[in-house]
């Protein structure tokens, strides 16, 4: 209200004078003017206040609009963590590869596609069905048409399709046929090492991805480990050797056919590290198309059945070396001790006789007992050892528990042995009857006994150094046992087992198959050859088992291990030893073990 305004005077002289003449009070004019002036002032300040309110209102509006817009933006956008740096390593969501000991791929992943349909989007369902059945002949056209024309909104057509098939489906040009990315587990080597690898299938499935889960073998045992994103895609390194495994499967398959066997198994194991170099069970299957388990009948007839791990059989005389080794360990005998082999050996109403009722005379040295495979001699030794000590020794070698191999099936393969370990059991178990174990048990037992006497556990993981387990027998006993096994090959029942340059030592085992209703078949056997090579400096043990083999070149069919499992094992060693990098050696003239008697 200052100077620049043109002010109306409060007391205009002309009006005052006029008013005085009329006898009016001139103060009224002044008041009238003051009132008017105040009205103007009030209007002005009101206008200003209104303007300010509008501006303030606009500010608020802008603020609310901003917040509202931001909230909408946040609500519609994907949540993202605020970050100042880029992640340095990408998390690998893929299932890790499985490789053999030399890094060769045994299982890997392959990006492929799945095919699904939205029937409501199909333009011409009949044509789509016709075209699809042309691409996938295994599809059921009628059923597909029913699904396409029914009320289904979603339908899987194929879980895995190849890029060519995808292109062909794409070319149909049907908007209702859609593809989702799929990661597929691929076993590039087909059936090689099928039992060890097991297989994989899809777990939880969605359109844009599916979980790959292991269904058997190492795939299942290491499922968590293979799927762990923190491992950054590092492959799982197995102890298997792909080349050796392939060669072993080839040789074993040939042997199985040659001897008309129903099945065959082999285990090749490093004696010091316990690494399983090859584990074969025939018949086998293709893990890319893993067959379904049998719904009826004996599971052991299924190709899925792993004879080397799950098949518990009475493995027969291959066990005798354990009795002999324990007798030496306990100081009850040395390789030259004379053992009473006078038959028949009676225990209660049971009679223990020799294989094919042979007679080995009144006594044999311990070495010859093993070499000739005398049941009576071994049983007499076991009597001296006693059932408690025998059981403890076999437990120590791992024969009474499932093997700790890293496969889901291992836990289920428990050995069978009498709950009441009687004196008779002791006698029969001493030569491998009355106790059923898997070929893998036998391989682990042989490895522990023959590597210098240190216990090893079989493993499928690549190891960098020897397992220094507890000492189960003294190194001298181990050497003596190897010398005996070598004699079995050079002089005894396993003469077909000799492979020039590899000093194979081993023990045969022939066991009649038990009938399902008790008793034994007299024309069905399980033959086993458990071997170690080279016997003077042990590197590997090999166990070969044939199920119901028969050798028909002679007058009578032969079903003993010496005629069946041994030649197969010899061929296997001939083929695989060079692959393992073992060079053939001219054998040392004397074996270390023979000096045992003089050293004590």
């Amino acid at each position: 209200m200052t100077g620049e305004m043109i002010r109306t005077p409060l007391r205009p002289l002309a009006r005052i004078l006029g008013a005085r003449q009329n006898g009016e009070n001139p103060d009224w004019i002044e008041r009238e003017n003051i009132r008017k002036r105040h009205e103007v002032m009030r209007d002005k300040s009101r206008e200003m206040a209104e303007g300010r309110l509008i501006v303030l209102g606009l500010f608020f509006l802008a603020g609310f609009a901003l917040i509202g817009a931001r909230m909408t933006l946040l609500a519609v956008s994907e949540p993202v963590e605020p970050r100042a740096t880029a992640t340095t390593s990408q998390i690998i969501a893929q299932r890790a590869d499985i490789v053999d000991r030399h890094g060769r791929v045994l299982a890997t992943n392959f990006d492929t596609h799945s095919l699904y349909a939205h029937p409501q989007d199909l333009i011409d369902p009949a044509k789509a069905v016709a075209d699809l059945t042309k691409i996938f002949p295994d599809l059921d056209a009628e059923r597909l048409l029913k699904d396409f024309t029914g009320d289904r909104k979603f339908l899987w057509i194929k879980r895995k399709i190849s890029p060519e098939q995808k292109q062909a489906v794409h070319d149909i040009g049907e908007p209702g046929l859609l593809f989702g990315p799929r990661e597929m587990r691929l076993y590039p080597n087909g059936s090689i090492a099928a039992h060890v690898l097991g297989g994989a299938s899809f777990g939880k499935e969605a359109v844009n991805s599916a979980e790959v889960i292991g269904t058997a073998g190492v795939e299942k045992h290491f499922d968590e480990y293979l799927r762990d994103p923190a491992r950054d895609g590092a492959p799982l390194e197995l102890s298997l050797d792909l080349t050796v495994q392939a060669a072993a499967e080839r040789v074993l398959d040939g042997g199985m056919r040659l001897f008309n066997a129903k099945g065959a198994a082999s285990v090749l194991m490093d004696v010091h590290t316990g690494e399983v170099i090859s584990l074969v069970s025939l018949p086998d299957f293709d893990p890319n198309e893993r067959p379904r388990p049998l719904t009826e009948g004996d599971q052991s007839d299924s190709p899925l059945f792993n004879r080397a791990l799950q098949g518990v059989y009475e493995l027969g005389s291959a066990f005798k070396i354990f009795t002999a080794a324990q007798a030496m360990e306990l100081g009850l005998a040395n390789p030259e001790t004379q053992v009473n082999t006078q038959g028949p050996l009676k225990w209660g109403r049971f009679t223990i006789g020799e294989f094919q009722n042979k007679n080995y005379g009144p006594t044999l040295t311990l070495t010859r007992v093993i070499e000739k495979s005398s049941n009576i001699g071994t049983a007499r030794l076991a009597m001296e050892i006693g059932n408690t000590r025998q059981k403890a020794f076999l437990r120590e070698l791992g024969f009474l528990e499932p093997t700790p191999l890293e496969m889901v099936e291992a836990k289920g393969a428990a050995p069978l042995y009498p709950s009441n370990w009687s004196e008779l059991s002791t006698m029969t178990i001493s030569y491998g009857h009355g106790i059923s174990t898997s070929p893998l048990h036998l391989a682990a037992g042989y490895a522990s006994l023959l590597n210098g006497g240190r216990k090893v556990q079989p493993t499928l993981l690549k190891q960098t150094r020897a397992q220094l387990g507890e000492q189960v027998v003294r190194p001298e006993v181990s050497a003596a046992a190897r010398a005996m096994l070598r004699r079995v090959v050079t002089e005894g029942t396993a003469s077909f087992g000799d492979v020039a340059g590899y000093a194979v030592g081993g023990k045969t085992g022939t066991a009649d198959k038990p009938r399902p209703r008790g008793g034994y078949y007299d024309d069905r056997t399980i033959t086993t050859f458990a071997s170690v090579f080279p016997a003077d400096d042990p590197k590997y043990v090999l166990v070969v088992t044939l199920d119901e083999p028969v050798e028909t070149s002679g007058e009578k069919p032969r079903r003993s291990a010496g005629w069946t499992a041994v030649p197969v094992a010899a061929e296997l060693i001939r083929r695989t030893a060079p692959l393992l990098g073992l060079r053939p050696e001219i054998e040392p003239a004397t074996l270390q073990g023979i000096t045992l008697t003089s050293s004590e």
Partner: protein
Amino acid sequence: MKSFLYSLCALAVMGLAFWAYSENYRTQESIAKVESLHQDIAAARSRVAVLKAEWAYLNRPDRLRDLAELNYPRLELLPLAPEQFGAIDQIAYPRPDLPELPVSGLPITDPVDVMERSE
């Protein structure tokens, strides 16, 4: 004097704000670049995985064995045998001149695929 300081401060604030702004944009740009590189790496990795799988598939022992058998007349490949281990003194030195290999026989440029060949 005072107003000069004030305006100097204001200018400094503006300058720093401008610098921070441009730095922020440069950072974002770098992050975006790293991310696209990661994507390239992931793509390359999956390509390598496919190639590895294919390599493993083409080198599967069954196929190699069948190829060796098919090409036996030319290559005469046999399984490794113990007799093939030799001693160093069995190797003649200096190396005798090798006969020229027929150029048409090697190398194998067109391997026979035995994918569908069953036993």
